[in-house]
């Protein structure tokens, strides 16, 4: 979790909400099963509004409850997986946002949260997909899984600057996938989201290999025009990693 989130949470909570959360954290610390009834109730007691960096007040309060669980490894993963299983969208989102925190606090947690990330990536809820693609997914997803997650975001219209680790993890294969995606869009006479271009630009040759540039000679006017627009956007983009 971004270090300023806990501070922002403390500033935003009312006195009553602080008292409730402190008590809930203490109960979870003594009896991990208590999390099963306090975790769903967070929105009512602490609020649901935005906090900072894409986190809501409820996300941050729920992260604090999960972090208070006196469990490790498989037992921790089971409790958290059940919170996700029985959670509504807001609870699932908080579980996903908490994964990095659990991973950092407990080395034996490791990959045990990945099934939850993959479940979010299988769904169509953009809020959950975005929450799933935080620092935990950036560290833990394998190459193929990470690349497909990026492509899923492009398909769902999630801006790529909202997902963690793209600068470090974008590779030539991802650039190829995105260039092929761009070609497909152009062949349909459609525009391409601008935020894929830095990744493609950083891997010279991938755009040419996709066949997109030849679309400028297409006999179909919509394809030709879409290709011209895409190439102009590509040329105007600095490659990822360039200052």
């Amino acid at each position, binding site marked *: 979790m971004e270090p300023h989130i806990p501070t922002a949470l403390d500033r935003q909570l009312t006195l009553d909400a602080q008292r409730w959360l402190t008590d809930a954290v203490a109960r979870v610390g003594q009896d991990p099963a208590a999390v*099963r*009834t306090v975790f*769903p109730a967070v929105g009512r007691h602490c609020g649901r509004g935005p906090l900072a960096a894409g986190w809501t007040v409820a996300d941050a309060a729920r992260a604090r409850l999960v972090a208070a669980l006196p469990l490790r490894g498989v037992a921790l993963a089971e409790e958290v997986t059940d919170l996700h299983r*029985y959670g*509504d969208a807001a609870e699932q989102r908080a579980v996903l946002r908490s994964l990095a925190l659990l991973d950092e606090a407990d080395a034996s947690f490791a990959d045990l949260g990945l099934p939850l990330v993959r479940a979010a990536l299988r*769904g169509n*809820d*953009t809020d959950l997909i975005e929450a799933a693609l935080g620092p935990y997914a950036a560290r833990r997803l394998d190459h193929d899984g990470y690349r497909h997650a990026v492509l899923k975001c492009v398909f769902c219209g999630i801006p790529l600057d909202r997902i963690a680790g793209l600068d470090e993890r974008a590779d030539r294969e991802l650039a190829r996938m995105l260039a092929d995606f761009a070609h497909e869009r152009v062949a349909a006479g459609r525009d391409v989201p601008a935020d894929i271009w830095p990744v493609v630009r950083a891997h010279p040759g991938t755009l040419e290999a996709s066949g997109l540039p030849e679309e400028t000679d297409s006999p179909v006017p919509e394809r030709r025009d879409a290709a011209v627009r895409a190439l102009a956007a590509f040329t105007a983009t600095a490659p990822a990693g360039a200052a």
Partner: protein
Amino acid sequence: MRIFDPHIHMTSRTTDDYEAMYAAGVRALVEPSFWLGQPRTSVDSFTDYFDALLGWEPYRAAQFGIQHYCTIALNPKEANDPRCAGVLDVLPRYLAKDRVVAVGEIGYDSMTPEEDVALARQLELAVEHDLPAMVHTPHRDKAVGTRRTLDVVRESGIPPEHVLVDHLNELTVSQVADSGCWMGFSIYPDTKMSEDRMVRILQEHGTERMLVNSAADWGRSDPLKTRKTADAMLAAGFDDDTVDQVMWRNPVAFYGQSGRLDLEDVKPDDTSLYQGNSIKRGGE
């Protein structure tokens, strides 16, 4: 006219029903969990059902400008099935959810020992979670079943004003009125209770602690019975304020004891999605 249907099973109704209910004045409702018309065979099928009552169904209702709340419980009929009784262990997770405004439907079906255990345990859960309880009375041997229900309620220690005893009729209303519990009436097309009989009960027993519902489900039933009863009340000489008390303020007061009712108008919004899915068909 504003109407709050305190008992209706919307998962088995169509979008046409939502449209007609909104047009008739329904702005909020409570969907109690019950059985499916055929037996469940595992706890998992309960949890999928609870998830729908808390997820997809409120989303669907909101598309038509209606606030959807629910009650969660192991229903009396399935309390007798050992494959289902394990759901009691997962109920606490669901009773903590924002849109759960009572424990229910609980109560008796055939008055078996298993039903005794489930009823007592779930009244305990209502007390633990500071929630009202919505209690169904049996359709067979109703007078005896209602008396026994009230005995168990009394023994449980739950305050009577936290309890709604439902599916009442001319022969069971008095004992519930005397108990201090709220009184629920399900108005059905042919049997059990009609609009005109309901009006006579209100004339005789007054309108305090009285709730009227359609109990519409997948059987022969009518989701507009609340409105039809309201019209029958007006025709019989009740004034607008009394109709509003029965059709809106009473259910709001009863379920409001959960602290979880938030009755701001829902604006129908055909662009929103639930888990990325919508109620539109075709054209996507």
